[in-house]
């Protein structure tokens, strides 16, 4: 019986239609199915999704999505070897691989001011960064960025990237002081923990956490560049004062030493626990969520969940403020360093959909994107259906609490948003520039009414005590984006091996430096510098070349 059942099943499986149908280009409205690969994980949209239904009605296009399930590079390597390219191909952080292997077509064959005015207007302001030269010197554009091409003034409501964080209660306890330097920060933490060794439940406070797990070791290795007054360039420090853009790895330089020496001091004072070096991410989040960690260096998105947990438990005073710390003059030959944690917005270069060489209807896709850059489609993608998902009041776009909560509910989104497609497609961001809705934000999550409308009383009072409007006021406004962009975006695969060594040596030595006896610190630091110099030099020199090359693209265009 079982066997018959099994056999019947096999038959039913193989007879089901499985071949994706590619339409000829000629018939524009002939229904087609586009195969799509997304370089990050995601859920398949629901069958009854209202947005995809509209896309199908309007453009005759349905999608067959594949999401990343395993290792990205492994997946792309396999697809390249088999030349199994989907029509729309988002290579995630490794899109460079697709370009190097000739998997993507040059979009400039279809995108131009005449043919696609909206798309062109969208990329035009950043075209120096986006349009590259191929080996033969032709202009090429493989990917229209999925994020970072925003209209209007840059929106900074909060610090989303790196910062030194401190619990609000510590600032409250200290009488709402201005904290701008490394010493001020640790002095306040020291004093607070001396006065309040434990929380209300008797759990001892941890002064400062350093997450080092796997790729999240940026919490350990990245701070020095910010203390030196630069926004995030990854693992190098760039001197933007001249057009030479002198680029160097910072971790092996004398100016990095004071930070780790300071951490060593704090370790021996008991502000840092050795457990922080063996902590996994879940334990870190658990510790932050318990409200007993007073400070850390991190990036805001990295501990969102802990923030949710604290707010959920009404522990607002234990949530964090992002501070932009710099070195005290004593550490840098008496120089006053100006703080810049927030950078000017930059396009997400080479991130998003490209169209593969296997695609039979590239023009149709580009034309669809062009159409989708209209305000109507963008409103539909971002805000949804009026009356259903949002409402308009006095020319302002609004959402009820329930409507906004929906946009965060994964199950709801699978039926009512087209994120699997829109996240990697070109889109409008920033402010709506024309029409009745001008002045509103394209993205609900940036709309001031939504951001500030529901702020809790503790935070309101806290901001008021400082006389600030928003939490981003704790740091300086964005610095102008340097011509080379942000150095962490640079593809360093040619020096991959050296870069890995460079990271490994830091991972190994920095915790030891923080934990060693103070009188051994100097000798150990010298050992570290000696060990890391070879790989640091190779990586640093490579980055110098690349930074200059990137900068030249923009500067030569001006």
């Amino acid at each position: 019986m079982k066997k018959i059942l099994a056999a019947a099943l096999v038959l039913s499986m193989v007879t089901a239609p499985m071949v994706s149908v590619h339409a000829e280009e000629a018939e524009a409205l002939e229904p087609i199915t586009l195969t799509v690969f997304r370089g990050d994980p995601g859920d398949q949209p629901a069958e009854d999704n209202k947005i995809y239904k509209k896309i199908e009605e309007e453009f005759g296009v349905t999608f067959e999505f594949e999401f990343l399930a395993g290792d990205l590079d492994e997946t792309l390597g396999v697809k390249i070897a088999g030349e199994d390219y989907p029509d729309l191909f988002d290579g995630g952080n490794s899109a460079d691989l697709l370009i190097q292997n000739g998997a993507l077509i040059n979009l400039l064959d279809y995108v131009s001011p005449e043919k696609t005015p909206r798309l062109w207007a969208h990329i035009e302001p950043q075209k120096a960064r986006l349009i590259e030269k191929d080996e033969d010197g032709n202009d090429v554009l493989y990917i229209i960025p999925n994020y970072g091409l925003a209209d209007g003034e840059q929106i900074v409501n909060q610090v989303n990237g790196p910062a030194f964080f401190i619990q609000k209660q510590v600032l409250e306890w200290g009488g709402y002081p201005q904290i701008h330097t490394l010493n001020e920060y640790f002095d306040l933490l020291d004093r607070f923990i001396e006065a309040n060794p434990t929380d209300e439940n008797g759990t001892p406070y941890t002064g400062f956490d350093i997450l080092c797990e796997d790729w999240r070791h940026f919490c350990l290795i990245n701070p020095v560049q910010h203390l030196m007054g630069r926004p995030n360039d990854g693992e190098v420090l760039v001197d933007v004062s001249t057009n030479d853009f002198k680029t160097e790895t910072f971790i092996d330089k004398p100016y990095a030493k004071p930070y780790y020496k300071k951490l060593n001091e704090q370790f021996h004072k008991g502000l840092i626990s050795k457990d922080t070096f063996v902590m996994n991410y879940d334990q870190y989040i658990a510790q932050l969520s318990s409200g007993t960690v007073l400070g850390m260096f991190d990036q805001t998105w990295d501990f969102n969940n802990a923030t949710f947990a604290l707010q959920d438990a009404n522990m607002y005073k234990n949530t964090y403020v992002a501070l932009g710390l710099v070195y005290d003059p004593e550490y840098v030959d008496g120089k006053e360093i100006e703080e810049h944690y927030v950078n000017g917005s930059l396009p997400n270069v080479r991130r998003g959909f490209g169209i593969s060489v296997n695609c039979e209807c590239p023009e149709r896709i580009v034309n669809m994107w062009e159409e989708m850059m209209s305000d109507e489609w963008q409103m539909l993608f971002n805000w949804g259906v009026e009356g259903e998902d949002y409402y308009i009041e006095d020319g302002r776009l609004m959402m009820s609490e329930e409507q906004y909560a929906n946009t965060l509910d994964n199950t709801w989104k699978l039926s009512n948003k087209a994120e699997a497609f829109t996240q990697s497609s070109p889109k409008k961001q920033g402010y709506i520039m024309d029409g009745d809705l001008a002045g509103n934000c394209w993205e609900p999550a940036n709309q001031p009414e939504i951001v500030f409308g529901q702020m809790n009383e503790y935070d309101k009072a806290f901001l008021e005590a400082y006389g600030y409007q928003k939490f981003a006021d704790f740091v300086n406004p964005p610095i102008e984006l340097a011509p080379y962009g942000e150095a962490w975006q640079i593809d360093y695969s040619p020096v991959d091996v050296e870069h890995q060594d460079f990271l490994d040596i830091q991972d190994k030595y920095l915790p030891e430096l923080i934990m060693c006896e103070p009188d051994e610190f100097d000798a150990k630091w010298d050992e570290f510098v000696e060990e890391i110099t070879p790989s640091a030099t190779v990586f640093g020199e490579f980055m110098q070349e690349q930074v200059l090359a990137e900068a030249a693209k923009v500067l030569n265009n001006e």
Partner: protein
Amino acid sequence: MSNIRKRSDASAGGTRKRGFFATLGKQWQLVLMSLPMLIYVLIFNYSPMWGWVTAFQDYKPKLGISGSKFVGLDNFKWLFGRADFINSIRNTLAMSVINLVFSTVAAIVLAVLLNEVLNIAFKRTVQTVTYLPHFLSMVIVVGMAQNIFASNGPLNELLMSSGLLKQPIFFLGEPKLFWWLVGFINVWKEVGWGTIIYISAMTAIDPCLYEAASIDGAGRFAKIRYVTLPGIKSTFVILLIMNIGHLMEAGFELQYLLQSSLTMDVAQTIDIFVLKYGISKQQYGVATAAGMFKSVVAIILLFAANTIAKKLDENTLI
């Protein structure tokens, strides 16, 4: 071939030289039973072996095997020129030996203890419960272990409150303890699963043997020693030979999750090394070279173990 022929001729009882094909003909039913899977492994396991050529290439997926540059032994030279690769061989062997000893002993002990249980319901319950952790993902198990072994975790608290310790032991950050921790977690997760094969082997033991031993006045321990253990010996030996061949595989997930910057020197296995420098850096040639090296060592170990077993007159794998 000639070797096989001699042996089989001998075992077939003196068939003469010309007799190989004659014997084969007589054994057509056995041939029929083994042919399908022989063809199967030739297709699925051996036909893709052209991939090993890439160990001598700077392989690029786009160029394929014919287009990629031939680099001779460069990939091997690069591997063996790296101190951390040599280090990862040491770590791999150390951890797999510890794992092999721990998990084999634990599985046999548990299987024997279970075999002594007369109450079937209890036996089945214990057996079911102990194999369950096999289905937990490594992330979950390692996460739990990290909580239990933390400096302020339950284990240290227990040891301190019972007065056995004054200072908590830094289990997770102490390189000396890392391999043993890996061994422990492996046993914890897999011991019940590992017993299944021994328990099933014990079912083949003739109950008469136990009765006979009882009549001879053997106690429980004597019965275990003279009946149960000999009864599973062939399974034990075969598994041991197979696992000795697997000594170059210490896995990567457990170590990868459990390691920290303080223990990275002792945690990196060959597989982690390959992951780090091979696949994720598109150095496919290096990854293949490392895999080939592992296979060659595995085969040497396997045949060595098999030969020793033969010398000792034990069951052999081959």
